[in-house]
């Protein structure tokens, strides 16, 4: 066998043709759904017009809607979906617990608490203020959890759960005493992609893209970490450093996503779950497949949120839960306990 033939053979057996095929199929599906998503809404726009609006902008009403409103919203869904799904994949890998989701680091509770506190003090009125509060709250919460719980995965999860309980309780108390604060929080807390287009999204989106690339770069070292601490060390993985960077990635990904779209963290639980079997123990594949399925799930949920009710919108978090719940049950029944 020639050297070239060998390499190809290696690529087939180790990296797996079905994996690559599924990934490419996922990308195509994602692109198609994104185009549909931009077309669907109070004013329907055909897929052809959608593509034309993006590639050959004529300034018609439809084109303006596509470029200024719907395309950014779809982009937001893609970024948030990928961020949450990858954050979920990372936390499940790190905690060696398939029930972990990004929220266990306290990010959601931290963001919710900060928004409640911020609007109580009067500086979370606009979207920029809310965004700032949410980012700060989620990062601080995750930092606290990661610092206290860094010694072991179990400690990490317990700390996150404890902090979440405390922050949620205090924030709830504040909202019950201050009705105005409650209104601000309620809008954020349902989790939605609507009317968030105008927020200064460049920074969170940039952060998400950087962290997604970082997650991919780190995924082979995470592969080593899944072999248990001793073997990871003796295989030459810098265990503590990898773990610390992963925690930072999870925090920024889920913090940024939560800040711009509210708590839709269910995506972070369900997506890595659905792709676990396909990834077959490989973290790089888990991250890649999550990166594609997360946006698909969120785009579909977002389309649903726009068409399910004849008047107005259903918050996307509600749709995600409706979609994700049955999917999770299906995954468990289909693959048995092994998938949990």
């Amino acid at each position, binding site marked *: 066998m020639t050297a070239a033939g*060998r390499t190809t053979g290696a690529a087939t057996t180790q990296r797996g043709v079905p994996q690559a095929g599924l990934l490419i199929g996922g990308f195509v599906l994602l692109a198609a759904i994104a185009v549909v998503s931009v077309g669907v809404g109070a004013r329907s726009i055909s897929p052809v017009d959608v593509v034309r609006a993006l590639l050959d902008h004529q300034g018609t009403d439809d084109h303006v809607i596509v470029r200024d409103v719907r395309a950014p919203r779809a982009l937001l869904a893609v970024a948030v979906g990928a961020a949450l799904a990858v954050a979920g994949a990372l936390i499940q890998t790190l905690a060696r617990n398939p029930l972990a989701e990004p929220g266990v680091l306290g990010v959601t509770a931290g963001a919710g608490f900060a928004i409640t506190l911020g609007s109580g003090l009067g500086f979370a009125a606009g979207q920029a203020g809310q965004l700032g509060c949410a980012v700060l709250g989620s990062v601080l919460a995750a930092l606290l959890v990661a610092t206290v719980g860094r010694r072991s995965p179990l400690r990490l999860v317990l700390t996150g759960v404890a902090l979440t309980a405390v922050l949620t309780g205090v924030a709830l108390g504040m909202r019950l005493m201050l009705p105005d604060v409650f209104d601000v929080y309620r809008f954020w807390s349902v989790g939605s992609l609507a009317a968030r287009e105008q927020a200064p999204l460049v920074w969170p989106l940039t952060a998400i893209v950087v962290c997604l690339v970082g997650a991919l770069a780190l995924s082979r070292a995470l592969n080593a970490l899944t072999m248990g601490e001793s*073997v990871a060390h003796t*295989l030459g993985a810098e265990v503590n450093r990898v773990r610390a960077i992963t925690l930072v990635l999870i925090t920024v990904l889920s913090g940024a996503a939560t800040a711009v779209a509210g708590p839709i963290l269910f995506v972070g639980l369900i997506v890595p779950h659905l792709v676990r079997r396909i990834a077959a123990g490989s973290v790089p594949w888990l991250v890649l497949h999550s990166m594609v399925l997360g946006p698909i799930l969120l785009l579909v949920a977002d389309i649903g949120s726009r068409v399910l009710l004849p008047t107005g919108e259903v918050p996307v978090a509600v749709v995600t839960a409706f979609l994700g719940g049955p999917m999770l049950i299906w995954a468990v029944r289909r693959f048995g306990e092994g998938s949990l």
Partner: protein
Amino acid sequence: MSARLTARDITLRYGDRVVSTRLDLDVPDGAFTAIVGPNACGKSTLLRALVRLLRPASGQVELDGREVGGYPAKALAKQLGFLPQDPLAPDDIKVRQLVGRGRFPHQSMLALWSAADEDAVTGAMEAAGVADLGDRPVQELSGGQRQRVWMAMVLAQETPYLLLDEPTSFLDITHQYQLLGLLAKLRDEGRTVIAVLHDINQACRFADHLVAMKDGRIVAEGDPTDVVDAALIKDVFDLPSIVVPDPVTDTPMVVPTLQGE
């Protein structure tokens, strides 16, 4: 006898619990070293210190005259391969992929799977006798098959040193001898093997260098034929015995005289 891997005056402890005090060990190059001793005598701890999973409280573990703690992680991982007693396989992983994980120290962050990786994995699986298990999920294997798959994983790491913590523990008697035979063969090919073994007779038959430990101390060290006698077994294991020549290999064979009670 030259030794690239040495422990000099090392004290090993977990927190406040001191396991070994001021231990010295030269691991002979290209030999099969067996570490034996009763449970909790510090065998595994010594092995963990040699692969720097445990940092000595004092003293140094050195490879080629340089402290192991000073090596970059991957550089050390290209020298010392280690198999713990009860390794943990990721969920859903298949045999070939698990063996492939042994290539980690040879891969850069973004490099693709290479022909060298492929050859190493194939060779390791053949050597460990798991070539036909490639597509099986590791979770579905028997304990013995799993142990051999892990052995293949360490072999794929292609290190001059193999440090193994009770590698025979989940194997039936046939597979125990096959594995020890494999280790002897790897030794013949030039690798240095250090294994914690439970069975003193197997250690005597296969090892060139025996290290007997008790209460964290090395009480005897050398060619099994020179060091193993009834007095040593009485001292180390607190077991009355006679030592006779192994009828197959002529190495020392310990026959306990304890009957009941």
